[in-house]
């Protein structure tokens, strides 16, 4: 190994350990590690100024392909398209939350099913999955879990099973689209996939899995969520969904913007607008329509996450430039003995197991160049490996309380409202569901692509 490779690995491993230890905020960790990669790996060891510029990828902004892309292209270094898209969606979601959109939607659905617990349970699972296809799962679960607890208090049922099922479905829904989960955005923008590519590949298996999951959770939780009121519910005691709307004009505007975002994403393969363009457009239109509240919305954007991404991409760039990721790809090829089915199973299950315990974002960012290299050397279709990686990282995260952001937010909201969920309670129900969905996905990939 060269000095550059050794330092790239040390920085990467140290970064991962620091993220797990949670002593220093994770965006400082990745940014510090990114700066170290630029100075030590690229500057001192490689003495390669071009590698620094390639990794910073600032030139990309000036290219037409960054904003309008007719042919698929792969990106290297800092994935600015991902960062811009996430930032844009953050602004939009803040606008929607401020107008009371999410609370209204949850309350409205509960009303439509006449506040009966089993129909709420099923519709909230589906809503969690559908919303997570377009919006980050943290926001979805934050609102859904809060409303679930509120309804549980009114209807006297145990909210824990419902929150657990919502968490699982949020992660599942996120796997269905390119913008549903950060690993998918990274995979999609790095390998030049469209929203539709995801929907017709990971989306299809997510749909099948959602049906299975709803049935699974119904049988597992039906006794636990039975309301003390039975079917005698006095609807007059419940708050009116329209009370959730803070401002009717803002509500209408945010609903239209959300609709536009969905249409732009679904049609981006036809319009050739990249996710970076869509993210920027959505952010600008949200800010323009929010008038004097624009500054407030901008202040609420989670800049820490954006900085976390920037640092992360630089560190992974270090591993890529020094050839470490090719070594990992060679290793995977070697242990699978060239067997495609085994190679896919390794990508899917290793991604899932890793994502159950460590942040799936750095994992996905690291694995994208690995599967690129693996596809080049082994001849296995890159798309197939990409779907295995996406599904593995998105679904695997559901298995433990720390596997994905939605899990942490959901269990925290539950705990703060008097329903602590420990590892045992969480894993007993969600780990088997995760294994079932992964098994379905494994069979799906083999049947469809091999």
């Amino acid at each position, binding site marked *: 190994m060269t000095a550059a490779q050794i330092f790239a690995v040390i920085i990467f491993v140290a970064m991962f350990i620091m993220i*797990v*230890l*949670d002593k220093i905020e994770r965006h400082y960790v990745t940014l510090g590690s990114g700066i170290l990669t630029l100075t030590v790996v690229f500057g001192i060891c490689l003495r390669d100024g071009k590698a620094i510029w390639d990794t910073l990828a600032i030139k990309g902004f000036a290219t037409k392909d960054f904003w309008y892309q007719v042919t698929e292209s792969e990106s290297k270094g800092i994935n600015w398209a991902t960062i811009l898209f996430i930032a844009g969606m953050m602004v939009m979601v803040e606008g929607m939350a401020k107008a009371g959109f999410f609370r209204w939607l949850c309350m409205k659905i509960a009303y439509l099913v006449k506040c009966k617990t089993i129909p709420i349970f099923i519709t909230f699972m589906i809503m969690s999955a559908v919303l997570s296809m377009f919006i980050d799962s*943290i926001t979805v679960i934050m609102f859904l879990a809060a409303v679930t607890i509120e309804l549980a208090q009114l209807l006297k049922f145990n909210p824990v099973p419902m929150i657990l099922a919502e968490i699982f479905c949020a992660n599942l829904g996120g796997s269905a689209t390119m913008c549903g989960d950060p690993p998918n955005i990274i995979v999609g923008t790095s390998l030049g996939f469209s929203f539709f590519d995801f929907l017709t590949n990971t989306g299809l298996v997510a749909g099948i899995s959602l049906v299975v999951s709803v049935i699974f959770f119904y049988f597992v939780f039906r006794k636990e969520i039975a309301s003390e009121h039975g079917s005698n519910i006095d609807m007059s005691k419940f708050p009116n969904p329209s009370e959730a709307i803070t401002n009717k004009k803002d509500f209408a505007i945010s609903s239209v913007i959300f609709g536009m975002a969905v249409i732009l994403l679904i049609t981006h393969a036809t319009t050739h607008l990249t996710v970076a363009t869509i993210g920027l457009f959505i952010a600008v239109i949200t800010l323009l329509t929010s008038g004097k509240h624009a500054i407030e919305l901008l202040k609420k954007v*989670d800049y820490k996450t954006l900085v976390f991404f920037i640092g992360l991409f630089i560190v992974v760039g270090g591993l890529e430039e020094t050839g470490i990721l090719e070594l990992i790809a060679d290793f995977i090829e070697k242990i699978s003995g060239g067997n495609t089915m085994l190679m896919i199973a390794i990508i899917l299950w290793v991604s899932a197991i890793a994502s159950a315990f460590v*942040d799936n974002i750095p994992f996905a960012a690291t694995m994208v160049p690995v599967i690129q290299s693996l596809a080049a050397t082994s001849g296995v279709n890159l798309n197939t490996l990409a779907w295995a990686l996406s599904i593995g990282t998105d679904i695997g995260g559901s298995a433990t*309380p*720390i596997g994905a*952001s939605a*899990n*942490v*937010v959901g*269990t*925290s*909201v539950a*705990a*703060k409202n*008097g*329903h*602590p*969920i*420990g*590892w045992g309670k969480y894993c007993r129900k969600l780990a088997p569901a995760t294994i079932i969905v992964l098994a379905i996905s494994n069979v799906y990939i083999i049947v469809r692509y091999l």
Partner: protein
Amino acid sequence: MSQFIISIGREFGSAGRAIAEELAKRFNIPIYDRHLITEIAEKTGLTPEEVEKYNEAPKLKILSRRVNGYSNSIEDNIAEMQFEFLDEKAKSGESFVVVGRCAETKLRKYPALISLFILGDMEEKIKRVMKIYELSEEDAKSFIAKKDKKRKRYHNYHCSGHWGDSRLYDLSINSSRLGIDKTIDILEQYINSRINK
């Protein structure tokens, strides 16, 4: 000063809790220690024993994660609920004594805070723990070490300053030097001076 909040950090075996109880009695104000556990138990639906298990306990970092201020760790959530409870009490203008719970840091923004730290000589602490918990000298020593390690990890995880560092507190005092009663007298005098300042 109409409101005063006495926070007491303590080494295990230094009689910190006994001193806190006596101060609460002398100033005729409530003490939040075990009371906080009952409060959280009522709020969460857990039994007080379960809350006690997670109380002032450091979380296992490998099994927990924090996202945008949310944490999956029950220890973290119970700690935050206690901090919020104390903050609400402080905000309401109430005077009280609080034992542990990083109060010297969490309530630092309130001018009414008088933060104390009680330490003790190891021999004295061992004697006290042997008597109260009916332990052998060896067991008492390791019990003290275990408890202090737990408190230190809990404190240092939730605060930027280090547990027991005199710079964090208004007054640090070794209860073994003058004995518990005289230590309480000195502290009472100090608190009175602060109140009447």
